[in-house]
């Protein structure tokens, strides 16, 4: 395996050459004063060193961040775009949960009304979450299309693809469970229809819809069940699976575009991914 090149350290972070007359500890000829900027830099390095000495994290970080990647194009950013859409959903979702109440007798709708009409920036955060949900679904499909049309699902990246399919299903599960939460008429009827659609799966369908509704009818705990699935169960699974997905991406490297000529000397460069 070729040795990884040393990561390029930005100019500002590279140690400055010593001024003439300064030696190692800097106080032989000079005034012995350390400027605040130097002290701050020194402190930063000390902290990072302290952590790294105890965790050896820097090796892993370098392995993850400074990889050889082929000359790709903008389509290669779709995976990261999906990741950022997911992060945005996570952040806005956490803060929506501070105001939202999963109460089927009217509290849920009222708490959504409060978020949108009264809470400071509530409409914005809710809008981010609502539109971000669609953005994430669009991006995940585009990313899947990219990996499909570039043949990136082939050996040895089948696992990456399979985990991706599970991520796609989980993302759609997020969309489905989240749609009920505003608890207006559209949410209610869309969920009735959605639960009944999955009830049409032969043999197991009737039991799955009973599980989703927590009973044979849409009842008092259906909403809290959807809420728990939406904000705890599925996000946890997605986070775990994204980790594995990205580990595999880093471990296997990224596929070169299919138009890359095999006889060309592959031109590798180091990029921050």
């Amino acid at each position, binding site marked *: 395996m070729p040795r990884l090149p040393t990561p390029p350290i930005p100019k500002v972070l590279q140690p400055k050459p010593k001024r003439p007359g300064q030696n190692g500890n800097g106080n032989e000829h000079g005034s012995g004063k350390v400027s605040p900027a130097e002290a701050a830099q020194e402190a930063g390095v000390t902290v990072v060193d302290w952590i790294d000495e105890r965790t050896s994290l820097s090796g892993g970080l370098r392995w993850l961040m400074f990889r050889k990647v082929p000359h790709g194009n903008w389509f290669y950013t779709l995976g990261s775009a999906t990741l950022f859409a997911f992060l945005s959903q996570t952040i806005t979702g956490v803060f929506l949960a501070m105001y939202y109440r999963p109460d*089927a*007798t*009217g509290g849920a709708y009222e708490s959504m009304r409060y978020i949108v009409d009264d809470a400071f920036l509530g409409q914005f955060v809710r809008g981010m979450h609502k539109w971000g949900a669609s953005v994430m679904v669009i991006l995940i499909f585009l990313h899947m299309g990219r990996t499909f049309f570039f043949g990136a699902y082939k050996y040895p990246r089948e696992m990456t693809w399979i985990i991706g399919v599970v991520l796609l299903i989980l993302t759609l599960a997020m969309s489905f469970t989240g749609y009920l939460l505003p608890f207006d008429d559209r949410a*209610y*009827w869309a969920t*009735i*229809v959605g*639960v*009944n*659609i999955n*009830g*049409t799966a*032969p*043999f197991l*369908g*009737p*039991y799955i*819809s*009973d*599980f989703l*509704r*927590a*009973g*044979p*009818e*849409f*009842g*008092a*705990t259906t909403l809290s069940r959807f809420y728990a699935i939406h904000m705890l169960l599925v996000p946890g699974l997605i986070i775990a699976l994204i980790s594995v997905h990205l580990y595999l991406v880093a471990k296997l490297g990224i596929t070169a575009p299919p138009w890359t000529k095999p006889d060309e000397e592959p031109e590798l460069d180091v990029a921050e991914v």
Partner: protein
Amino acid sequence: MADKHKKNLSKYTVDLNMPGAFEGETVTRRRFMNVTAQGLGGIAAAAFTLPALGFALGPVFSREPFEWQIIGRPDDFQPLVYSLRVIALVANVGEAGKSTAYIRKRDPAIDVEPEDEYNQIIALTSRCSHLGCPVEWVESASIFACPCHGGVYNFRGIRIDGPPVRPLNRFYTLIRNGYVYLGPMYSVNVEIKRFSNRDPGQPLDGIGQYLYPSRFSTATLPPTTNLPLPPAGIPAG
């Protein structure tokens, strides 16, 4: 220690000259401790996973008790005209637990399915048997029409157009004490043969009745001996 990997080693620890081995012992102490520790770990994990799973899956297997409810007097309903009643399907969820039913008297000229004490009054659900949207009775055309995907049912609630897969669900009804009682919902196939309550979208004709088994959670016919007494407040007609 090359002989450790040799084949045909005796299974007795004594033969292997293990310190502290005793006659007839086959499981080494290291192996015993290994299995015990992992077994205990498994038991500990199961101790929280299984109850949590059961907790989440419980509603699939438990049956909610269903009560009869009074929907009026027999004379409130006519043979050829549907009246609308708002009924409670689930308690304590406000509007989300309510549904509407279309109710009329049985007319032997139209209702050719076998007669018994549960269908003297015919009560159809408004829940579309396609995917569950609320159907509406259109008097002028004498049909039930669904706003979602264009399902259409005739006067008896049998599908005549659109995507629904079976007739509208019905409710058991009883006439007792001079009042009409509404019981649990049931599903029917195109001959109005009764099946336990199925969700919309699940056909009951042909192979459908085998593909979509009945659920543990749907109410069977509750006992008819303890019907709630009619409250004095209900006006007679």
